C-alpha cells in the first residue's frame, strides 16, 4: 500500500479509529442485501454473494466464496482467500485471526446483516477473541466523503443525468412501466454503473408511492415519476424527477410548483451546521403554507431525504426530529416526495454535496416538470 493509493486516506482514518477504539483488527462484512461496510474497507466490487475484509494495523485480507477468490486483489488487501460454504469461509477468517495473533478485541462492522450461520461459526472458532460492534464507529467515518468517494459519486450523478434523458425518451403513451426501466437499466449499465436502485410510478391521484415497475401502460395525462439511483464503484447518487405524458394539467403544474419550492428551500438551507431537521422543516413549511401540512405525515410520505454513499438510503434521514448537524463533505438528497390531492404522488430532488459555504448540486438535470419525449 503506497501513499499513491486513492484509498490511503480512508485506510488511515479506519486505522486511527481502530486505535481509538482499542481494536486489534477490524472485520467488515457484506452480503447481497447490503455490502456497504465491506465496500468501505474493500472498494473493489466482488461477485461473491458475501465476504469479509479483515483489516489489521498493517494490512488487509479478503475472504469470499470460491471461485470469486480468483478475482484480483485490490489496493486495500494483500491476500484473497476463498472457500465454498459460509461455514468454511468463517473458519478461514477465524484461522487467520488466530494466525495473526489478533485480539483480544476484534471490531465487526456490518454485523447487522451477518447471517447466524456465519456468526455462530465465527464465534465458536474465535475462542476468547471478543467481537466488538463497530458499525457505528465506521459509519462516523463514512458520513464525510473522501476524494475517491466523491469522484465515484460524481460519476454516478453524471450517469443519473444521462439515465434521466433515456427515461424521458422512453415515456410514451402505451408503453408499459417495465419497458421504461429496462431501457434505463441498459443505458446505465453500458455507462458503467454496477447497480441502480430505481422505483417508478405512473398515474395521477391514484398514485400514493413508487414500486418496482408493473405492466401498466402509460396514458395521456399521467404523471410518471422515478427515483433514479446509479451505483459507481460502490457509491450511489440519486435523482428524483417527474414528467407528464402530454402537456401538464393545471393541477400538475400547481403541485409541481409546490415541490419545486420545497426542494429550493432545502437547497437554500443546506450548509454546514444546519441539521437534518432543518432541511425537513424547510420543505414541510412550504407544504404547510400551501395548506397541505397533513401530507407531510407518515401516512403520505416516508422521509424528506437521506444521506447517500455506499448505501442508497444512508443516515441521516431527513425528519423533523433528527438533530444531526451537516458537515462539509457529506452527500445527501433532500426530496419532498409525497402525495398531494392535486395530482397524486410526485418526486423531486437532487444529490447535494455539503461544502464549506453551502451545498453543491451534483446532479445537473434541469429542475423543471418534464414532458414525455422532451430533450431531457
Amino acid at each position: 500500500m503506497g501513499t499513491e493509493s486513492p484509498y490511503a486516506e480512508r485506510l488511515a482514518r479506519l486505522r486511527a479509529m481502530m486505535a481509538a477504539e482499542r481494536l486489534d483488527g477490524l472485520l467488515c462484512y457484506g452480503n447481497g442485501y447490503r455490502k456497504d461496510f465491506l465496500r468501505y474497507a474493500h472498494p473493489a466490487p466482488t461477485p461473491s454473494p458475501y465476504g469479509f475484509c479483515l483489516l489489521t494495523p498493517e494490512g488487509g485480507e479478503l475472504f469470499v466464496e470460491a471461485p470469486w477468490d480468483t478475482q484480483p486483489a485490490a489496493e486495500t488487501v494483500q491476500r484473497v482467500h476463498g472457500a465454498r460454504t459460509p461455514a468454511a469461509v468463517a473458519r478461514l477468517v477465524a484461522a487467520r485471526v488466530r494466525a495473526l495473533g489478533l485480539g483480544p478485541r476484534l471490531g465487526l462492522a456490518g454485523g447487522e446483516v451477518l447471517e447466524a450461520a456465519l456468526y455462530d461459526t465465527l464465534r465458536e472458532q474465535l475462542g476468547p477473541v471478543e467481537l466488538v460492534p463497530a458499525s457505528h464507529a465506521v459509519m462516523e467515518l463514512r458520513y464525510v466523503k473522501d476524494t475517491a468517494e466523491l469522484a465515484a459519486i460524481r460519476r454516478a450523478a453524471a450517469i443519473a443525468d444521462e439515465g434521466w434523458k433515456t427515461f424521458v425518451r422512453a415515456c410514451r403513451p402505451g408503453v408499459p412501466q417495465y419497458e421504461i426501466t429496462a431501457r434505463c437499466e441498459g443505458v446505465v449499465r453500458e455507462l458503467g454503473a454496477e447497480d441502480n436502485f430505481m422505483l417508478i410510478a405512473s398515474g395521477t391521484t391514484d398514485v400514493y408511492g413508487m414500486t418496482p415497475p408493473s405492466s401498466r401502460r402509460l396514458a395521456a395525462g399521467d404523471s410518471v415519476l422515478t427515483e433514479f439511483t446509479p451505483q459507481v464503484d460502490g457509491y450511489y447518487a440519486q435523482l428524483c424527477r417527474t414528467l407528464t405524458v402530454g402537456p401538464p394539467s393545471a393541477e400538475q403544474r400547481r403541485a409541481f410548483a409546490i415541490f419545486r419550492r420545497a426542494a429550493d428551500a432545502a437547497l437554500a438551507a443546506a450548509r454546514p451546521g444546519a441539521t437534518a431537521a432543518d432541511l425537513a422543516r424547510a420543505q414541510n413549511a412550504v407544504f404547510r403554507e400551501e395548506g397541505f401540512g397533513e401530507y407531510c405525515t407518515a401516512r403520505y410520505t416516508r422521509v424528506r431525504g437521506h444521506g447517500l454513499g455506499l448505501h442508497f438510503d444512508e443516515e441521516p434521514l431527513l425528519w423533523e426530529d433528527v438533530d444531526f448537524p451537516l458537515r462539509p463533505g457529506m452527500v445527501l438528497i433532500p426530496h419532498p416526495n409525497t402525495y398531494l390531492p392535486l395530482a397524486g404522488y410526485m418526486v423531486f430532488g437532487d444529490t447535494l454535496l455539503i461544502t464549506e459555504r453551502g451545498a453543491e448540486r451534483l446532479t445537473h438535470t434541469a429542475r423543471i416538470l418534464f414532458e414525455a419525449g422532451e430533450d431531457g
Partner: protein
Amino acid sequence: MKRGLIEWDPGELPRETLAARGERAQALLAAAGLDAALVYTNVAAPQLARYLTHFLPYWNEGVLVLPRAGAPTLFVALSNRVVPWIKRSAAVDDVRACRQPAVEAARLLAERGARRVGLAERGSFPYRLLAELERAAPAIAFVDWPALAAALALATDPVERRLRARARALAEHGLRSLGDTVDGRNAPQLAGQLDLALRLAGATDTRVLVGPLGRWPGIPRAEPLGRAANVLCEVEYQGHWVLVARTLGLPAADQHATSERLHHLCSPGSTVAEAAAAARGGALFAYRAGAAAPFVALAEEERLAVGDIVALVTLSPADGGALYGDTFAVMPDRLESL
C-alpha cells in the same frame, strides 16, 4: 435491487398452489410440535417466503409468521403506502408495515400464546434478529426448523418447473441477442445490452458477470475483452432464478461440446467432487436453488439430490478457458435441462 417486472399472475402461479404449499408447511410444523414458523426474507434472500406467498421484496427485509393453523402474517420494513402493492403482488392478506419486523413478529406470537416457534433455516436469519426475537418474546423457544427447506423438492413441482423454464428461456433469448462474437464491445457494453434484452422480455431481475476468456467473470469493468468473453448470466422471472454461462466468440461446435460434457459430468446422487474430478482438470462449481438466496453454493462432499434444482458452472483449461454453465432439475434417472 429489483427493477424489473414484479407481478403475481394467478394464471401462472395459482392461489391454490400457494395455499397447498402453506398447508404442507403447516403439516410439517404440526409434525414437529411447533406452534408457528418464522421465515426471514430480504431483497437478496427471499426464496422461502417467495415459495409460500410469492412475496418479492424489492429492497429491505421482512418476517413472515406462519401459524400452525390459519393465515400467515407478513411484517415488512417498508412504507405502509406499499402495502396495497404487496397485497396485489403476493398471496398474503395480513401485511403490516413496521420498522422492526422481527420484534413485531415476536410480539404477535407472544400475544397468541406461542411457546415453541421454528425458524425456517435459522442460519439464514441475521444474528441481530435472533437477539431481537429473544428480547421481544423471552418466553418463546425459537428453534431451528430446517424441515421446510429440506422438503421443497423444487424439481418435481410442476409450477416451479414451468416458471423456471420461463426464466431459462429468457436467459437463452438474452444471450442470443448478444450475437456470436464480442465484436469489439467491452464488458459494460455487453452487460448493458444483455440486461436490456432480458428486462424488455419481462425479467424481474438479472445479474450479469463478464470477463475475458480463461478467467472467471467479474463485475463488468471497462477493460478490453479480446476475441472471446466469458459471460455468466443469472436471470429471475417472478422469483424463479436460473443461471446460464457461455463463452461469447467461441465456435458453435466447441460450445456444443462443452455443453455436452457438462451434461455428462454429473448424475443424480453424485457428489460435487465426483463431478469435478471428471471436469478435465478444470473447476466445477455447483449451487442448489434456494432456501434463502436464489442459489446456495454446494460443498465438494454434497450430493446432487433428486428433487433439487441445481446450477453447474465449469471453466476448464482443456476447453481453452471457456465457461459453461446451466441450471438443471435433478430427476431420479438424469439431470434434466430446464
